[in-house]
Protein backbone atom coordinates (compact mmCIF):
# COMPACT_ATOMS: atom_id res chain seq x y z
CA UNK A 1 0.00 0.00 0.00
CA UNK A 2 1.21 3.50 -0.88
CA UNK A 3 2.49 5.34 2.18
CA UNK A 4 0.08 7.92 3.52
CA UNK A 5 1.52 11.40 3.71
CA UNK A 6 0.28 14.59 5.28
CA UNK A 7 -0.02 16.13 1.82
CA UNK A 8 -2.21 13.26 0.62
CA UNK A 9 -4.45 13.50 3.69
CA UNK A 10 -4.73 17.26 3.25
CA UNK A 11 -5.71 16.80 -0.40
CA UNK A 12 -8.27 14.08 0.39
CA UNK A 13 -9.91 16.32 2.98
CA UNK A 14 -9.84 19.26 0.58
CA UNK A 15 -11.65 17.25 -2.10
CA UNK A 16 -14.30 16.43 0.49
CA UNK A 17 -14.72 20.10 1.37
CA UNK A 18 -12.43 20.68 4.35
CA UNK A 19 -9.33 22.86 4.20
CA UNK A 20 -6.75 21.42 6.57
CA UNK A 21 -3.44 22.95 7.51
CA UNK A 22 -0.57 20.57 6.84
CA UNK A 23 0.21 20.11 10.53
CA UNK A 24 -3.37 19.03 11.20
CA UNK A 25 -3.25 16.63 8.26
CA UNK A 26 -0.01 15.24 9.66
CA UNK A 27 -1.80 14.46 12.95
CA UNK A 28 -4.33 12.32 11.08
CA UNK A 29 -1.89 10.08 9.23
CA UNK A 30 -1.44 7.58 12.05
CA UNK A 31 -5.18 7.22 12.63
CA UNK A 32 -5.93 6.79 8.92
CA UNK A 33 -3.51 3.96 8.26
CA UNK A 34 -5.68 1.31 10.01
CA UNK A 35 -8.78 2.77 8.32
CA UNK A 36 -7.33 2.03 4.89
CA UNK A 37 -5.92 -1.32 5.97
CA UNK A 38 -9.39 -2.31 7.13
CA UNK A 39 -10.87 -1.10 3.86
CA UNK A 40 -8.34 -3.14 1.89
CA UNK A 41 -9.38 -6.25 3.84
CA UNK A 42 -13.08 -5.55 3.19
CA UNK A 43 -12.33 -4.99 -0.51
CA UNK A 44 -10.97 -8.54 -0.76
CA UNK A 45 -14.25 -10.08 0.34
CA UNK A 46 -16.68 -11.44 -2.19
CA UNK A 47 -19.70 -9.55 -0.95
CA UNK A 48 -21.90 -10.76 -3.79
CA UNK A 49 -24.22 -7.82 -3.45
CA UNK A 50 -26.28 -6.33 -6.24
CA UNK A 51 -28.63 -4.19 -4.26
CA UNK A 52 -28.21 -2.15 -1.10
CA UNK A 53 -31.36 -3.64 0.39
CA UNK A 54 -32.59 -6.69 -1.45
CA UNK A 55 -30.00 -9.21 -0.24
CA UNK A 56 -30.74 -8.49 3.42
CA UNK A 57 -34.50 -8.49 3.01
CA UNK A 58 -34.34 -12.02 1.58
CA UNK A 59 -32.48 -13.17 4.66
CA UNK A 60 -34.95 -11.48 6.99
CA UNK A 61 -37.85 -13.07 5.08
CA UNK A 62 -36.28 -16.51 5.24
CA UNK A 63 -34.86 -16.14 8.74
Amino acid at each position, binding site marked *: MKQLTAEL*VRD*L*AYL*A*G*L*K*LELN*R*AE*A*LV*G*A*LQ*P*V*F*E*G*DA*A*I*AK*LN*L*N*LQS*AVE*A*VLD*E*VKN*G
Partner: protein
Amino acid sequence: MAETELLFKSIPEIGALYRSKAISPLEITRLTLDRIAQLNPSLNAFISLTSEKALEQASRAERELHTGVDRGALHGIPIALKDLIDTAGIRTTCGSRILRDQVPKHDAIITTRLEESGAVLVGKTNLLEFAFGIVHADYGQTNNPYDLNRTAGGSSGGSAAAVAAGLCFAAVGTDTGGSIRIPASYCGVAGLKPSYGLTSLSGVFPLSWSLDHAGPIARSSRDARLMLEAMTGLRLEHPARIKNMRFGVLQREGTDMQPAVIAAFDAAAQALRGAGATVQTIEIPDLELADAALLNVLLPEASVIHAPWIESRPEDYSPLTRMQIELGFAIPAVTHVRAQQFRRHLTRQFLLALRGLDAILSPTVAFVAPKEDPLFAVDAHGVSEGRRTSPYNLCGLPALSVNCGFGDHGLPVGIQIVTRPHEDALALAIGGAIEALMPEARPVPNNDRGIF
Protein backbone atom coordinates in the same frame (compact mmCIF):
# COMPACT_ATOMS: atom_id res chain seq x y z
CA MET B 1 -39.13 2.88 54.71
CA ALA B 2 -35.73 4.48 54.24
CA GLU B 3 -35.72 7.15 51.57
CA THR B 4 -32.79 5.59 49.75
CA GLU B 5 -34.60 2.28 49.68
CA LEU B 6 -37.57 3.91 47.97
CA LEU B 7 -35.41 5.42 45.26
CA PHE B 8 -34.00 1.99 44.37
CA LYS B 9 -37.38 0.31 44.00
CA SER B 10 -38.53 -0.86 40.59
CA ILE B 11 -40.94 1.13 38.47
CA PRO B 12 -43.86 -1.25 39.14
CA GLU B 13 -43.11 -1.21 42.90
CA ILE B 14 -43.24 2.57 43.03
CA GLY B 15 -46.33 2.54 40.85
CA ALA B 16 -48.05 0.20 43.29
CA LEU B 17 -47.16 2.51 46.19
CA TYR B 18 -48.63 5.45 44.27
CA ARG B 19 -51.84 3.61 43.54
CA SER B 20 -52.25 2.46 47.13
CA LYS B 21 -51.52 6.06 48.17
CA ALA B 22 -48.71 4.88 50.43
CA ILE B 23 -46.57 7.56 48.82
CA SER B 24 -47.10 10.23 46.19
CA PRO B 25 -45.31 11.20 42.97
CA LEU B 26 -44.55 14.57 44.54
CA GLU B 27 -42.84 12.95 47.53
CA ILE B 28 -40.76 10.64 45.35
CA THR B 29 -39.83 13.48 43.03
CA ARG B 30 -38.72 15.65 45.95
CA LEU B 31 -36.64 12.79 47.34
CA THR B 32 -35.12 12.28 43.89
CA LEU B 33 -34.24 15.95 43.51
CA ASP B 34 -32.72 15.98 47.01
CA ARG B 35 -30.58 12.95 46.15
CA ILE B 36 -29.46 14.57 42.90
CA ALA B 37 -28.44 17.69 44.83
CA GLN B 38 -26.50 15.52 47.25
CA LEU B 39 -24.69 13.24 44.77
CA ASN B 40 -24.43 15.05 41.45
CA PRO B 41 -21.45 17.16 42.53
CA SER B 42 -19.39 13.98 42.81
CA LEU B 43 -21.01 12.03 39.96
CA ASN B 44 -21.48 14.83 37.42
CA ALA B 45 -24.32 12.81 35.89
CA PHE B 46 -26.54 15.81 35.08
CA ILE B 47 -25.86 18.87 32.96
CA SER B 48 -29.22 20.54 33.62
CA LEU B 49 -31.87 19.92 36.22
CA THR B 50 -35.54 20.51 35.46
CA SER B 51 -36.72 20.75 39.06
CA GLU B 52 -39.62 23.15 38.51
CA LYS B 53 -40.96 21.14 35.58
CA ALA B 54 -40.48 17.92 37.51
CA LEU B 55 -42.50 19.17 40.46
CA GLU B 56 -45.28 20.40 38.14
CA GLN B 57 -45.37 17.05 36.36
CA ALA B 58 -45.35 15.19 39.66
CA SER B 59 -48.24 17.30 40.98
CA ARG B 60 -50.19 16.64 37.82
CA ALA B 61 -49.48 12.93 38.10
CA GLU B 62 -50.70 12.94 41.67
CA ARG B 63 -53.93 14.75 40.77
CA GLU B 64 -54.54 12.46 37.83
CA LEU B 65 -53.94 9.23 39.72
CA HIS B 66 -56.24 10.42 42.52
CA THR B 67 -59.02 11.13 40.01
CA GLY B 68 -58.72 7.86 38.16
CA VAL B 69 -56.62 9.03 35.22
CA ASP B 70 -53.94 6.38 34.89
CA ARG B 71 -51.38 6.85 32.13
CA GLY B 72 -49.63 3.58 32.79
CA ALA B 73 -46.45 2.27 34.33
CA LEU B 74 -44.42 5.45 34.00
CA HIS B 75 -47.06 7.73 35.50
CA GLY B 76 -45.32 9.88 38.11
CA ILE B 77 -41.95 8.14 37.69
CA PRO B 78 -38.81 10.35 37.69
CA ILE B 79 -36.73 9.83 34.55
CA ALA B 80 -33.88 11.58 32.76
CA LEU B 81 -32.93 12.25 29.13
CA LYS B 82 -29.47 12.30 27.58
CA ASP B 83 -28.68 15.91 26.77
CA LEU B 84 -28.86 15.55 23.02
CA ILE B 85 -32.56 14.80 23.09
CA ASP B 86 -34.56 17.97 22.47
CA THR B 87 -36.72 19.34 25.25
CA ALA B 88 -38.72 22.43 24.34
CA GLY B 89 -37.66 25.46 26.34
CA ILE B 90 -34.94 23.50 28.14
CA ARG B 91 -31.29 23.84 27.25
CA THR B 92 -29.99 20.91 25.18
CA THR B 93 -26.22 21.15 24.94
CA CYS B 94 -25.05 17.86 23.36
CA GLY B 95 -22.20 18.08 25.89
CA SER B 96 -20.64 20.73 23.67
CA ARG B 97 -19.50 24.32 23.75
CA ILE B 98 -21.02 24.84 20.31
CA LEU B 99 -24.56 24.13 21.51
CA ARG B 100 -24.04 25.25 25.08
CA ASP B 101 -26.86 27.77 24.89
CA GLN B 102 -29.19 25.93 22.53
CA VAL B 103 -32.78 25.92 23.67
CA PRO B 104 -34.97 23.85 21.34
CA LYS B 105 -38.41 25.12 20.40
CA HIS B 106 -39.86 21.63 20.11
CA ASP B 107 -39.67 18.39 22.02
CA ALA B 108 -38.17 15.32 20.44
CA ILE B 109 -40.81 12.71 19.73
CA ILE B 110 -39.34 10.56 22.51
CA THR B 111 -39.72 13.48 24.92
CA THR B 112 -43.35 13.96 23.93
CA ARG B 113 -44.14 10.26 24.27
CA LEU B 114 -42.58 10.07 27.73
CA GLU B 115 -44.42 13.20 28.86
CA GLU B 116 -47.69 11.72 27.58
CA SER B 117 -46.95 8.58 29.57
CA GLY B 118 -46.87 10.75 32.69
CA ALA B 119 -43.14 10.40 33.37
CA VAL B 120 -41.50 13.14 35.44
CA LEU B 121 -38.38 14.65 33.83
CA VAL B 122 -35.80 15.48 36.51
CA GLY B 123 -32.99 16.54 34.21
CA LYS B 124 -30.74 16.23 31.17
CA THR B 125 -27.82 13.94 31.58
CA ASN B 126 -24.14 14.40 30.80
CA LEU B 127 -22.60 12.80 27.72
CA LEU B 128 -19.42 12.69 25.69
CA GLU B 129 -19.27 15.66 23.34
CA PHE B 130 -21.87 15.18 20.56
CA ALA B 131 -21.85 11.50 21.59
CA PHE B 132 -18.55 11.26 19.70
CA GLY B 133 -16.41 9.61 22.33
CA ILE B 134 -14.58 12.48 24.01
CA VAL B 135 -15.29 14.46 27.18
CA HIS B 136 -15.50 18.19 26.59
CA ALA B 137 -13.64 20.07 29.31
CA ASP B 138 -16.58 22.46 29.75
CA TYR B 139 -18.63 19.56 31.19
CA GLY B 140 -16.17 17.03 32.56
CA GLN B 141 -16.37 13.28 32.89
CA THR B 142 -19.32 11.51 34.49
CA ASN B 143 -17.92 9.40 37.30
CA ASN B 144 -18.81 5.83 38.04
CA PRO B 145 -21.10 5.36 41.05
CA TYR B 146 -19.05 2.29 42.02
CA ASP B 147 -15.73 4.14 41.94
CA LEU B 148 -15.64 7.89 41.57
CA ASN B 149 -12.10 7.67 40.19
CA ARG B 150 -13.40 5.83 37.15
CA THR B 151 -15.60 6.75 34.24
CA ALA B 152 -19.26 5.84 34.01
CA GLY B 153 -18.56 5.15 30.34
CA GLY B 154 -19.94 6.75 27.25
CA SER B 155 -21.34 8.28 25.53
CA SER B 156 -24.53 7.90 27.62
CA GLY B 157 -22.56 7.90 30.89
CA GLY B 158 -24.75 10.46 32.64
CA SER B 159 -27.90 8.43 32.01
CA ALA B 160 -26.30 5.19 33.19
CA ALA B 161 -24.74 6.75 36.30
CA ALA B 162 -27.99 8.53 37.21
CA VAL B 163 -29.95 5.29 37.04
CA ALA B 164 -27.31 3.27 38.90
CA ALA B 165 -27.05 5.86 41.68
CA GLY B 166 -30.80 6.14 42.26
CA LEU B 167 -31.03 9.64 40.81
CA CYS B 168 -33.90 8.53 38.58
CA PHE B 169 -35.75 5.31 37.88
CA ALA B 170 -34.89 5.13 34.19
CA ALA B 171 -33.28 7.23 31.51
CA VAL B 172 -32.88 7.45 27.76
CA GLY B 173 -29.53 7.13 26.05
CA THR B 174 -28.34 6.86 22.48
CA ASP B 175 -26.07 4.23 20.94
CA THR B 176 -24.01 4.47 17.76
CA GLY B 177 -21.27 1.93 18.54
CA GLY B 178 -22.15 0.93 22.10
CA SER B 179 -23.00 4.14 23.88
CA ILE B 180 -25.94 2.75 25.83
CA ARG B 181 -24.52 -0.71 26.47
CA ILE B 182 -20.97 0.27 27.45
CA PRO B 183 -22.00 2.63 30.27
CA ALA B 184 -24.76 0.19 31.26
CA SER B 185 -22.09 -2.50 31.63
CA TYR B 186 -19.74 -0.22 33.56
CA CYS B 187 -22.51 0.95 35.92
CA GLY B 188 -24.25 -2.40 36.48
CA VAL B 189 -27.58 -1.49 34.90
CA ALA B 190 -29.69 -2.70 31.98
CA GLY B 191 -29.28 -0.84 28.69
CA LEU B 192 -30.94 -1.66 25.38
CA LYS B 193 -29.92 -0.65 21.90
CA PRO B 194 -33.23 -1.47 20.20
CA SER B 195 -33.75 -2.66 16.65
CA TYR B 196 -32.74 0.06 14.21
CA GLY B 197 -35.65 2.39 13.63
CA LEU B 198 -37.78 1.10 16.51
CA THR B 199 -37.45 4.35 18.45
CA SER B 200 -37.86 7.75 16.85
CA LEU B 201 -34.75 9.84 16.37
CA SER B 202 -36.69 12.97 15.47
CA GLY B 203 -35.33 15.71 17.72
CA VAL B 204 -32.28 13.65 18.73
CA PHE B 205 -29.00 15.22 17.61
CA PRO B 206 -27.32 12.75 15.25
CA LEU B 207 -23.83 11.35 15.31
CA SER B 208 -24.09 8.87 12.45
CA TRP B 209 -27.51 8.69 10.86
CA SER B 210 -27.32 5.06 9.80
CA LEU B 211 -25.86 3.81 13.09
CA ASP B 212 -27.72 5.89 15.68
CA HIS B 213 -30.29 4.34 18.00
CA ALA B 214 -32.12 5.70 21.07
CA GLY B 215 -32.96 3.33 23.89
CA PRO B 216 -33.76 2.86 27.57
CA ILE B 217 -31.44 2.47 30.54
CA ALA B 218 -32.91 1.17 33.79
CA ARG B 219 -32.01 -0.93 36.81
CA SER B 220 -33.68 -4.04 35.41
CA SER B 221 -34.72 -5.47 32.07
CA ARG B 222 -38.35 -5.18 33.14
CA ASP B 223 -38.02 -1.47 33.87
CA ALA B 224 -36.17 -1.01 30.57
CA ARG B 225 -39.07 -2.72 28.82
CA LEU B 226 -41.59 -0.37 30.48
CA MET B 227 -39.53 2.60 29.36
CA LEU B 228 -39.31 1.27 25.79
CA GLU B 229 -43.05 0.68 25.71
CA ALA B 230 -43.62 4.32 26.63
CA MET B 231 -41.06 5.47 24.03
CA THR B 232 -42.67 3.44 21.24
CA GLY B 233 -46.31 2.88 22.18
CA LEU B 234 -45.76 -0.86 21.70
CA ARG B 235 -46.52 -3.71 24.10
CA LEU B 236 -43.33 -5.70 24.54
CA GLU B 237 -44.07 -8.42 27.07
CA HIS B 238 -42.69 -11.82 26.17
CA PRO B 239 -43.09 -15.12 28.03
CA ALA B 240 -39.48 -16.20 27.61
CA ARG B 241 -38.81 -19.63 29.00
CA ILE B 242 -35.14 -20.42 29.20
CA LYS B 243 -35.62 -24.18 29.13
CA ASN B 244 -34.78 -25.52 25.66
CA MET B 245 -33.61 -22.12 24.43
CA ARG B 246 -30.49 -22.15 22.26
CA PHE B 247 -27.80 -19.55 22.77
CA GLY B 248 -24.69 -18.90 20.70
CA VAL B 249 -21.63 -17.40 22.37
CA LEU B 250 -19.44 -14.94 20.52
CA GLN B 251 -16.27 -13.04 21.34
CA ARG B 252 -15.85 -14.61 24.77
CA GLU B 253 -12.11 -14.71 24.25
CA GLY B 254 -9.46 -12.30 23.11
CA THR B 255 -6.26 -10.74 24.35
CA ASP B 256 -8.32 -7.76 25.46
CA MET B 257 -10.56 -9.79 27.78
CA GLN B 258 -10.03 -9.44 31.53
CA PRO B 259 -10.16 -12.89 33.21
CA ALA B 260 -12.70 -11.70 35.78
CA VAL B 261 -15.02 -10.57 32.97
CA ILE B 262 -14.76 -14.01 31.36
CA ALA B 263 -15.51 -15.59 34.75
CA ALA B 264 -18.65 -13.48 35.25
CA PHE B 265 -19.82 -14.20 31.69
CA ASP B 266 -19.20 -17.93 32.15
CA ALA B 267 -21.22 -17.87 35.37
CA ALA B 268 -24.17 -16.44 33.43
CA ALA B 269 -23.77 -19.05 30.69
CA GLN B 270 -23.70 -21.78 33.34
CA ALA B 271 -26.84 -20.37 34.97
CA LEU B 272 -28.59 -20.59 31.60
CA ARG B 273 -27.42 -24.19 31.13
CA GLY B 274 -28.67 -24.96 34.62
CA ALA B 275 -32.07 -23.66 33.57
CA GLY B 276 -32.16 -26.08 30.64
CA ALA B 277 -30.77 -23.96 27.81
CA THR B 278 -28.13 -24.98 25.31
CA VAL B 279 -25.15 -22.62 25.20
CA GLN B 280 -22.49 -23.18 22.54
CA THR B 281 -19.75 -21.20 20.91
CA ILE B 282 -20.43 -19.93 17.40
CA GLU B 283 -18.42 -18.10 14.77
CA ILE B 284 -19.48 -15.28 12.50
CA PRO B 285 -17.40 -15.05 9.31
CA ASP B 286 -15.53 -11.79 8.84
CA LEU B 287 -16.64 -10.39 12.20
CA GLU B 288 -13.07 -9.21 12.77
CA LEU B 289 -13.60 -6.59 10.06
CA ALA B 290 -16.54 -4.98 11.90
CA ASP B 291 -14.23 -2.57 13.76
CA ALA B 292 -12.93 -1.13 10.48
CA ALA B 293 -16.36 -1.06 8.90
CA LEU B 294 -17.83 0.88 11.81
CA LEU B 295 -15.21 3.61 11.55
CA ASN B 296 -15.59 3.85 7.79
CA VAL B 297 -19.35 4.29 8.13
CA LEU B 298 -19.39 6.49 11.22
CA LEU B 299 -16.56 8.92 10.59
CA PRO B 300 -17.78 10.33 7.25
CA GLU B 301 -21.41 10.43 8.43
CA ALA B 302 -20.39 12.41 11.51
CA SER B 303 -18.18 14.70 9.46
CA VAL B 304 -21.05 15.65 7.19
CA ILE B 305 -23.13 16.64 10.20
CA HIS B 306 -20.33 18.77 11.64
CA ALA B 307 -19.11 20.24 8.34
CA PRO B 308 -20.38 23.79 8.97
CA TRP B 309 -18.91 24.08 12.47
CA ILE B 310 -15.56 22.41 11.74
CA GLU B 311 -14.96 25.20 9.22
CA SER B 312 -16.34 28.12 11.23
CA ARG B 313 -15.42 27.29 14.83
CA PRO B 314 -13.11 24.27 15.04
CA GLU B 315 -11.51 25.48 18.28
CA ASP B 316 -14.80 25.09 20.11
CA TYR B 317 -14.58 21.32 19.84
CA SER B 318 -12.47 19.37 22.27
CA PRO B 319 -9.19 18.68 20.42
CA LEU B 320 -9.82 14.97 19.93
CA THR B 321 -13.43 15.42 18.78
CA ARG B 322 -12.09 17.91 16.24
CA MET B 323 -9.55 15.36 15.06
CA GLN B 324 -12.20 12.66 14.65
CA ILE B 325 -14.36 15.00 12.56
CA GLU B 326 -11.36 15.92 10.38
CA LEU B 327 -10.61 12.20 9.92
CA GLY B 328 -13.98 11.62 8.31
CA PHE B 329 -13.18 14.09 5.52
CA ALA B 330 -10.15 12.05 4.51
CA ILE B 331 -12.08 8.83 3.99
CA PRO B 332 -12.86 8.30 0.31
CA ALA B 333 -16.40 7.64 -0.82
CA VAL B 334 -15.55 4.17 -2.08
CA THR B 335 -14.19 3.23 1.34
CA HIS B 336 -17.43 4.38 2.92
CA VAL B 337 -19.60 2.52 0.39
CA ARG B 338 -17.60 -0.69 0.83
CA ALA B 339 -18.18 -0.43 4.57
CA GLN B 340 -21.91 -0.01 3.95
CA GLN B 341 -21.86 -3.07 1.69
CA PHE B 342 -19.98 -4.96 4.38
CA ARG B 343 -22.86 -4.21 6.74
CA ARG B 344 -25.22 -6.12 4.46
CA HIS B 345 -22.78 -9.00 4.32
CA LEU B 346 -22.34 -9.05 8.11
CA THR B 347 -26.08 -8.82 8.70
CA ARG B 348 -26.58 -11.83 6.46
CA GLN B 349 -24.02 -13.80 8.50
CA PHE B 350 -25.76 -12.93 11.75
CA LEU B 351 -29.21 -13.78 10.41
CA LEU B 352 -27.92 -17.13 9.15
CA ALA B 353 -26.43 -17.86 12.58
CA LEU B 354 -29.65 -16.84 14.33
CA ARG B 355 -31.69 -19.32 12.29
CA GLY B 356 -30.62 -22.03 14.71
CA LEU B 357 -30.58 -19.89 17.85
CA ASP B 358 -32.84 -17.88 20.07
CA ALA B 359 -30.15 -15.33 20.89
CA ILE B 360 -26.45 -14.59 20.75
CA LEU B 361 -24.53 -13.85 23.95
CA SER B 362 -21.25 -12.08 24.48
CA PRO B 363 -19.55 -10.06 27.17
CA THR B 364 -20.67 -6.47 26.61
CA VAL B 365 -17.17 -5.06 27.10
CA ALA B 366 -13.85 -6.86 27.53
CA PHE B 367 -13.07 -5.01 30.73
CA VAL B 368 -14.62 -3.24 33.68
CA ALA B 369 -14.86 0.54 33.88
CA PRO B 370 -11.51 2.18 33.18
CA LYS B 371 -10.36 5.42 34.75
CA GLU B 372 -11.10 7.46 31.62
CA ASP B 373 -12.99 6.88 28.39
CA PRO B 374 -10.62 5.46 25.76
CA LEU B 375 -10.54 7.03 22.29
CA PHE B 376 -12.53 4.74 20.04
CA ALA B 377 -11.28 6.04 16.70
CA VAL B 378 -7.57 6.30 17.37
CA ASP B 379 -6.72 4.07 20.32
CA ALA B 380 -6.49 0.27 20.46
CA HIS B 381 -8.12 0.27 23.90
CA GLY B 382 -10.95 2.35 22.48
CA VAL B 383 -11.46 0.00 19.55
CA SER B 384 -11.55 -2.91 21.98
CA GLU B 385 -14.16 -1.14 24.12
CA GLY B 386 -16.65 -1.12 21.25
CA ARG B 387 -15.62 -4.38 19.59
CA ARG B 388 -18.47 -6.45 21.06
CA THR B 389 -21.17 -3.79 20.79
CA SER B 390 -20.57 -2.14 17.41
CA PRO B 391 -21.47 -5.12 15.19
CA TYR B 392 -25.10 -4.69 16.24
CA ASN B 393 -25.09 -1.03 15.27
CA LEU B 394 -23.84 -2.14 11.86
CA CYS B 395 -26.58 -4.76 11.60
CA GLY B 396 -29.42 -3.04 13.45
CA LEU B 397 -30.13 -6.07 15.65
CA PRO B 398 -31.53 -5.45 19.14
CA ALA B 399 -28.82 -5.79 21.78
CA LEU B 400 -29.30 -5.59 25.55
CA SER B 401 -26.66 -5.42 28.29
CA VAL B 402 -27.55 -6.60 31.79
CA ASN B 403 -25.34 -7.08 34.83
CA CYS B 404 -24.02 -10.61 35.25
CA GLY B 405 -21.56 -10.17 38.08
CA PHE B 406 -18.56 -8.24 39.26
CA GLY B 407 -14.98 -8.14 38.05
CA ASP B 408 -11.76 -6.52 39.16
CA HIS B 409 -12.14 -4.08 42.07
CA GLY B 410 -15.75 -5.16 42.52
CA LEU B 411 -16.83 -3.35 39.35
CA PRO B 412 -19.88 -4.46 37.36
CA VAL B 413 -19.66 -6.78 34.35
CA GLY B 414 -22.29 -6.81 31.60
CA ILE B 415 -23.53 -9.68 29.44
CA GLN B 416 -24.94 -8.76 26.04
CA ILE B 417 -28.01 -10.47 24.59
CA VAL B 418 -28.69 -10.11 20.86
CA THR B 419 -31.81 -11.29 19.04
CA ARG B 420 -33.27 -11.14 15.56
CA PRO B 421 -34.59 -7.85 14.16
CA HIS B 422 -37.65 -6.66 16.05
CA GLU B 423 -37.36 -9.35 18.68
CA ASP B 424 -36.57 -6.66 21.27
CA ALA B 425 -39.21 -8.15 23.58
CA LEU B 426 -37.38 -11.48 23.53
CA ALA B 427 -34.04 -9.83 24.31
CA LEU B 428 -35.59 -8.02 27.27
CA ALA B 429 -37.28 -11.19 28.48
CA ILE B 430 -34.01 -13.14 28.32
CA GLY B 431 -32.33 -10.29 30.22
CA GLY B 432 -35.00 -10.55 32.89
CA ALA B 433 -34.53 -14.29 33.08
CA ILE B 434 -30.76 -13.91 33.56
CA GLU B 435 -31.37 -11.33 36.28
CA ALA B 436 -33.74 -13.75 38.03
CA LEU B 437 -31.31 -16.68 37.68
CA MET B 438 -28.43 -14.66 39.13
CA PRO B 439 -29.58 -12.76 42.23
CA GLU B 440 -25.92 -12.65 43.29
CA ALA B 441 -25.31 -10.37 40.30
CA ARG B 442 -27.90 -7.87 41.40
CA PRO B 443 -25.98 -4.69 41.99
CA VAL B 444 -25.80 -4.06 45.72
CA PRO B 445 -22.97 -1.63 45.85
CA ASN B 446 -20.98 -1.62 49.04
CA ASN B 447 -17.58 -0.12 48.77
CA ASP B 448 -15.74 2.94 49.88
CA ARG B 449 -14.73 4.13 46.43
CA GLY B 450 -18.20 4.95 45.17
CA ILE B 451 -21.22 6.83 46.35
CA PHE B 452 -23.03 4.01 48.09
